[in-house]
């Protein structure tokens, strides 16, 4: 992809209370078709989007968290989650669902899509993009 641009989708909001998390995911699914270099950032309340065992039966709203697990099939494999944001919320990486992708260059080995990064690393990732879209 010589002309591919680096796109970062920044998620700072919790799911269900507002629609931003869901509509952000809808953008990412479409974006995957454009063969750009796609990364997702989860920081602040955005880390709540990735908690495991979400069950929305009690509130009558569609549970969209399984869609994150489909991102690997769309070749969206870089989900950066900020460590400090987790810690401030009393969460650790084991509270997040497992999201993997199959690496065709490594005999289809399953690799984790979620990468826990420090706040400083997140700042570096943000500064390394061509386009930053915020939700």
């Amino acid at each position: 992809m010589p002309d591919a641009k680096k796109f970062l989708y920044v998620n700072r909001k919790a799911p269900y209370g507002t629609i931003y998390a869901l509509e952000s995911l809808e953008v990412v699914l479409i974006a995957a078709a454009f063969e750009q270099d796609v990364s997702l950032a989860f920081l602040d309340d955005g880390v709540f989007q990735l908690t495991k065992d979400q069950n929305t039966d009690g509130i009558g709203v569609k549970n969209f968290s399984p869609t994150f697990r489909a991102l690997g099939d769309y070749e969206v494999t870089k989900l950066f989650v900020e460590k400090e944001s987790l810690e401030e919320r009393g969460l650790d990486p084991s509270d997040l669902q497992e999201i993997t992708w199959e690496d065709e260059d490594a005999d289809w080995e399953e690799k984790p899509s979620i990468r826990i990064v420090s706040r400083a690393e997140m700042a570096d990732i943000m500064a390394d993009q061509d386009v930053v879209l915020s939700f």
Partner: protein
Amino acid sequence: MSTLHTVNKSPFGDGALLSCIEHCKPGDGVLLIEDGVYGALSGSAISDAVVARAADVTFYLLEGDAKARGLPEGKLLGQVTPVGYDGFVDLVTEHDRSQSWL
């Protein structure tokens, strides 16, 4: 005479829960709903403030909202009582007024 306060925003990005905690009175109830349920997480940057106020205010959370957000039961503060929508209705009747921290 007591008030039921409802808080519907995450306390990590928004000041509503802290403001509510600083304005409610002994004997009041505080119900965490929608994204407000994150205020019930233990070991968080906000949990000490909730625990401290739980001395004279009763905290509740809307169970459906907590489950929707995948909050592990083991990580919820013991000081926060889960209720359903029916419990929400009862809380409104049991208090003299309700105040939404929008």
